[in-house]
């Protein structure tokens, strides 16, 4: 029985990790979180080559196997990482640590090129798309013509990869090399907490320790660190800020001080001063439509409830005071999410 199998994609380690890492990242700008994600995806490319015997190993020194250049033709993203490191010179060699470090410290320009190639590759396979970010509807962003878009991974493939990894880590039994690499990439990109609960993390850390001690790949990999402490600190702080405004108290504070977490408190201005509920809703829907969002109005009233891109928001009447008061609504995610 092949039920549920036909539409499945066979992805490389780097492609699988990219699908996880790029999901919900801004596509048009380079944020710190995206930089962390791209550095680790670049390292995943090196691990991909390593696992597929694309390196020749002599005394722990790895150099690109001559056949690798031909083999990488169909996978354009491989060359966007390997070429800048080697400049197509097969003599270039170093330990695994050296290759991972080189890949993860590529310049911003090269990272952007790599991102585009990888994203286009995944888009061509219908596994990644760019959707407008709701923040683009906010008065300040909309009126200054700032376009904000984000990546969205194919939900089916995303859950298949992440749930598969969870099952492999949390169940008894040996881990595959891909899983060991994925575990290391999760650690280096600081996204362990996104996939495992506190209790599960204890089990995962035991598994990681086992890998470190008993598997040759784990021994090599888990002693390597490529993350940048400052970037990770910024990422953790932003995550903390986001989770703070997801609480009732935080949400209330965000209403008064939207600067706390802008993406969770979008203000849409209305055409008229003191509009009635119907006009308010009309203006909000017009802005959402203009920015390309999918929405459904669940409840019409003083506080309308709208489902936008799979998240339910309350449209609360609000006014901001600048030189003149501007009336409109603030879109706040409904609790619990």
């Amino acid at each position, binding site marked *: *029985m*092949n*039920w*549920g*199998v036909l539409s*499945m994609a*066979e992805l490389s380690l780097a492609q699988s990790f990219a699908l996880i890492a790029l999901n919900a990242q801004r596509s048009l700008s380079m944020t710190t979180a995206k930089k962390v994600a791209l550095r680790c995806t670049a390292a995943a490319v090196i691990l991909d080559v390593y*696992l597929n015997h694309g390196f020749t190993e002599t005394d722990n020194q790895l150099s690109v196997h001559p056949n690798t250049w031909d083999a990488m033709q169909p996978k354009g993203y491989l060359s966007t990482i390997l070429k800048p490191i080697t400049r197509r010179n097969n003599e270039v060699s170093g330990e695994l640590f050296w290759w991972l470090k080189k890949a993860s410290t590529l310049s911003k320009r090269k990272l952007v090129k790599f991102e585009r190639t990888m994203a286009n590759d995944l888009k061509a396979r219908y596994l990644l798309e760019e959707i407008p970010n709701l923040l683009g509807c906010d008065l300040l962003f909309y009126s200054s013509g700032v376009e904000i878009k984000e990546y969205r991974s194919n939900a*089916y493939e995303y*859950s*298949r990869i992440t*749930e*598969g*990894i*969870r*099952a*492999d880590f*949390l*169940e*008894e*039994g*040996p881990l*595959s*090399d*891909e*899983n060991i690499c994925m575990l290391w990439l999760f650690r280096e990109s600081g996204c362990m907490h996104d996939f495992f609960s506190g209790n599960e993390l204890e089990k995962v850390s035991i598994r990681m320790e086992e890998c470190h001690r008993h598997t*040759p*790949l784990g021994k090599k990999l888990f002693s390597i660190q490529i993350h940048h402490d400052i970037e990770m600190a910024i990422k953790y702080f932003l995550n903390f800020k986001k989770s703070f405004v997801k609480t009732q108290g935080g949400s209330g504070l965000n209403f008064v001080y939207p600067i706390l977490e802008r993406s969770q408190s979008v203000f849409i201005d209305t055409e008229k001063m003191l509009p009635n509920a119907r006009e308010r809703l009309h203006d909000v829907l017009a802005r959402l439509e203009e920015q390309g969002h999918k929405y459904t109005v669940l409840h019409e009233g003083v506080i309308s409830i709208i489902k936008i891109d799979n998240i339910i928001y309350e449209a609360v009447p609000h006014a901001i005071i600048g030189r003149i008061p501007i009336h409109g609504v603030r879109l706040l995610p409904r609790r619990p999410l």
Partner: protein
Amino acid sequence: MSRQRSMETILADEFVSIGELVRLTDSRYSTLKYYTEEGMLPFEQAEENLTRRYRRVETVALILRIRTMKSQGMSVPQMKEALLQR
């Protein structure tokens, strides 16, 4: 080095792990673990610390059946009863 099995290999094998079942059926790991602990998905295990192995064809069919029963509004005890009767 032990590599992850390709889909082709998984589909040619009689037995699969829970991780592979997750990939095959697009189910959540916690859901399949719960069904296993409730005795709804039979498995084989050589020793306590070794991987649980599920018969691929039968287990995928079972998961499909459980999903259908769930969409009909059946509770877990009712589903267990129905699976036992069969």
